[in-house]
């Protein structure tokens, strides 16, 4: 008795999409002159559950350097965090982690 093995070909676009999904993704918060520093710190604590010191460190990095990578991980979760940050009126984007 032989077993037939079915080999499914994955379309090239799916392979590429999967590769993109697998890359770690950064959630980046960009500086804006309107949101208060105390408010931005609060949002980082609420959204990511960061302790005050870590949230303040990211807030200050945004303020002084114009941007801060606040989280890195799976793409789906990164998109979720960006949505959360947008709902709190922060300028946030996702990007590939290099």
């Amino acid at each position, binding site marked *: 008795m032989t077993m037939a093995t079915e080999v499914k070909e994955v379309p090239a676009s799916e392979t590429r999409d999967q590769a993109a999904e697998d890359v770690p993704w950064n959630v980046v918060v960009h500086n*804006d*002159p*309107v*949101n*208060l520093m*105390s*408010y931005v710190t*609060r949002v980082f*604590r*609420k959204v990511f559950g960061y*302790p*005050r010191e870590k949230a303040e460190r990211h807030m200050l990095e945004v303020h002084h350097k114009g941007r801060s990578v606040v989280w890195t991980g799976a793409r789906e979760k990164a*998109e979720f965090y*960006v*949505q959360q940050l*947008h*709902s*709190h*009126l922060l*300028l*946030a*984007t*996702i*990007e*590939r982690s290099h």
Partner: protein
Amino acid sequence: MVLYEIDDGHLGMREILPVESELLRMIPVWADGETDDVEGRLFPSPATDEEEAELRADWQAHVEPDLQEFFRSTRQIVEADLRSMKKDEDGFVVEFSLQHAEAWLNALGQARLALATRHGFEEKELSGLGPREIRTERDLALFQIHFYEMIQHWLVEILDRREFGADS
């Protein structure tokens, strides 16, 4: 204007001057930005990478409507609270549930972003103490941004203390 906490889980503002009451009533109005640049700031792109066109399209189709609805709901909460504003011998008074504080914080943020975007304020202008005189619509907008900022500071302080306790 005096900002205060009530032990029963409410927050209040009293001794509100007529001009301040008008600025408060304008929160939901300003927050409901209609111009493209204001919309662009309230609904920013989720990616700067050119390759992410698909994500941007998905975002506009699926995420932005949810965000629009969320922002609208916060404005409606503030609008309803402001409808209860009354006048007494010391000025106007408005009290609202502590559970509405997040909605107030968000609606105030929307209004400040809309005003700042519409008038193109620079970081230097926004980080200062506000206008020394109010002669133009732009001066008034900067004054409004600072007035709303004062309320936001107060709300953040209260919410942080209640949610994060001693670590606030």
